[in-house]
């Protein structure tokens, strides 16, 4: 592959006393990708990001950013939006954006120009000269995102960029990410909301309890779950069990969660089918056997399901926190 690796982590571990926050995580992020860090709260996403940025040092393992061992050496090429958002209350919006840009190596005049341009572009022109304490939470967060990208970094790291935003502004945030990706920038962001990742990421890292669970494209992720068909019916599904293409039949509830063995099944069922099987064949078989369907669903599993499948029941709870 001719694509350069922007970020390379090798067996990175971070321990706080007896507690292991991140364990043996290795990963490579190619240039130009939109990379999602997915995992429940406390999974080690923020710790990993902090280590990448050299805010904290890993206990063991190596990290290289743009081929350098230290992120601070290439600070002008990195932009960062932390998970917990905050701004200097008494500073004006433009001056905060400009200040962070100068800390990334931009000269003061250029920084000021960029700050105004960005604020105007993302609809904050009228607030550029206001103190940040006068801004709403959403606006403040936008200002902070702009502060993170004002110096036009090649690698942007966003920790939970969608949290605290209303749907409209989540949309804007997605646009910002897509804009940058379109200009060849590499974006790494963490989230625990799978839908965002599913919509905009081309690669994801699944992490839980400090350990890497999956790393790859979305399609690859979905393939980790066997193909399945979900049906809803009051009829006896006995005939389907005997089909050659059907590997297993599980009783599930309305939301697709498998029921325990002691519970009585129906009306929702999940049929695991062979990789080669055609779902239409199952449908045909239902008609043939007089099984009256209220629902037939053979869509790909969502990332959320992949996640639940990979991480297990415990993490599923966590992912909704």
């Amino acid at each position, binding site marked *: 592959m001719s694509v350069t690796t922007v970020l390379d982590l090798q067996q990175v571990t971070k321990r706080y006393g007896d507690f292991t926050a991140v364990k043996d995580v290795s990963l490579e992020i190619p240039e130009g990708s939109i990379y999602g860090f997915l995992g429940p709260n406390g999974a080690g996403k923020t710790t990993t990001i*902090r280590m990448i*940025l050299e*805010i904290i040092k890993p206990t063991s393992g190596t990290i290289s950013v743009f081929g350098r061992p230290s992120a601070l050496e290439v600070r002008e090429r990195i932009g*960062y939006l932390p998970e917990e958002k*905050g701004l*200097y209350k008494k500073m004006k919006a433009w001056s905060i954006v400009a200040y962070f840009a*100068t800390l990334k190596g931009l000269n003061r005049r250029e920084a000021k120009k960029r700050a105004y341009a960005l604020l105007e572009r993302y609809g904050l022109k009228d607030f550029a000269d206001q103190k940040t304490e006068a801004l709403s939470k959403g606006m403040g967060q936008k200002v*902070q995102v702009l502060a*993170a990208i004002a110096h036009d970094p090649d690698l942007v790291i966003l920790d939970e960029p969608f949290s605290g935003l209303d749907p409209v502004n989540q949309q804007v945030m997605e646009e910002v990410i897509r804009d940058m990706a379109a200009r060849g920038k590499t974006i790494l962001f963490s989230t625990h909301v799978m839908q965002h990742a599913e919509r905009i990421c081309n690669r994801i890292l699944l992490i839980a309890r400090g350990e890497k669970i999956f790393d790859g494209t979305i399609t690859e992720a979905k393939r980790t779950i066997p193909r399945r068909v979900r049906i809803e019916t009051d009829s006896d599904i006995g005939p389907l069990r005997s089909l050659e293409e059907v590997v297993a039949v599980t009783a599930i509830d309305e939301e697709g969660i498998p029921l325990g063995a002691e519970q009585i099944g129906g009306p929702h069922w999940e049929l695991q089918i062979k990789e080669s099987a055609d779902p239409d064949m199952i449908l045909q078989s239902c008609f043939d056997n007089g099984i009256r369907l209220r629902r037939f669903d053979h869509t790909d599993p969502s990332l959320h399901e992949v996640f639940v499948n990979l991480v297990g029941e415990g993490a599923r709870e966590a992912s909704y926190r």
Partner: protein
Amino acid sequence: MKYAWLVALREYAENAKTKGFWIGLLIFPIIIFMSFQLQFLLDKATPTRYVAVNDRSGNYMEAIEKELEWLHKRDIFRAFGEYAKKYSKASSGEKSQKIDFEKVPAVDAEAMMDQFSESNREVVQQFFESGGIEQSLQLMEPMLVKDRPEFEEPKYRYRLVPMPEIESPNDPKAAAQEMKAYLKGDEKITVDGEEEELFAYVQIPEDVAATVVRPGAPRMPTGEREGVEYWSTNLADTDAKDVVERAINAELRRAEYVERGVDFSQVEQVEKTYVPFVSLNAKKEEGEEEVSLADQIRQWAPVGFVYLLWIGIFSISQMLLNNTIEEKSNRIIEVLLSSVTARELMMGKLFGIAAVGLTMLGTWIAALFAVVFLKAGPEAELANGMLEVLTSSGLLPAFAIYFFFGYLMYAGMFLAIGSVCNTLKEAQNLMGPVMIIMIVPLFTMMFIPKDPNGTLATVLSWVPIYTPFIMMNRAAADPPLVELVGTGVLMVGFTFFVLYLTSKVFRIGILRTGQPPKIKELFRWMRS
């Protein structure tokens, strides 16, 4: 270092914009200016105070009247002196001659005042005997500028008024009770046709001679009120009482002399004789041993500097604490740390805030001299002289050095505290002990100049956190070189040690959320 500079620049710019900074900057000059101005205003605004004397013995009325009259004449004389100086052609033209403070002998302020007013007594009397204001104005006319307001006599400070008509002036107890109404303002006295409030009432009983205290004949207290009674509702202003008391006792003594057959004019002569008394400093070069006014300034100026040092260090360290906590509680710190190292951030903050503090201190010192200079007259010469003495004495460089290290030391501690706390409230708990430690130099400030190389001063000098204050305090007294260098080295070493520990605590603490660490944990961070 470039990034530390950027951080410092922001700290300076943002802090210089705050209201607190401007209030701090202006309040001090305003206070100084006001205290100058207030003195002047107070003198003008204080109304004439009326004193009534009920002298049943009949011996002292005249003496009191004379004393108050003399007081007033002296006021007129002084006011006229200032008037003449203000409007003389010389003062508006060339500058008056500079005073060399090294040559002006140090004086005990109180003794000087006594001598001055005594010798003045004759001058004042002569002035009024030879025609007073009118005559003097005529004589001085050619030397005064044409464009000047009329001379206005100052009003009486204390004025004797006749006793109001009361029912039983002869019965001391009843009279005092009756006079209470006047003192409390329920009844008014009439002066020159106008109603005025009585300020003080003095009651001299008929048998006052029997209550006179004499050496060798101790009197047992009878439990009754004896002697002269001074009644007033304002007992804070003791001037009126002092004047009356002085007049009565002077008259009493005069009578006593006469009774014993001593010639009183002889006594007066004798009382004005004295031998000159000079203080000498054995440490100084031959020929210059005389303790001059400059020496006194040098001796006491450090106290002022210690005070400035303390206020300066404390107020800006506080600023540092506040804004570290702001960054921490807002989580701005994380963005900062993705751009600068913890050390760069710390240095930037230390120096940015130091610059804020220096701006404030510089403005204060400048304002102090500006205010003094702006007031024309002898004060300007005084300020000039003081400035010269200070610049030549090495006190200013000492101040700069002790400020620098003292600031770094305390700012380091405050920064460490700020980095482990999430809220100002948490920080205040930790600040308590630091405050108690810090307040010590303020207590010792006034004692140390009296015994600058004594045990207390020496011991405290060797405690690094007190070195800047105590050594500044002792600066004028030529502390032994060993101590000067030794404590200096210790202070610099300790400062670096504090900053080293601070950088350790800061790096870990600043990212930490939740409860402030326990002492044990802090030590672990410091060792890491």
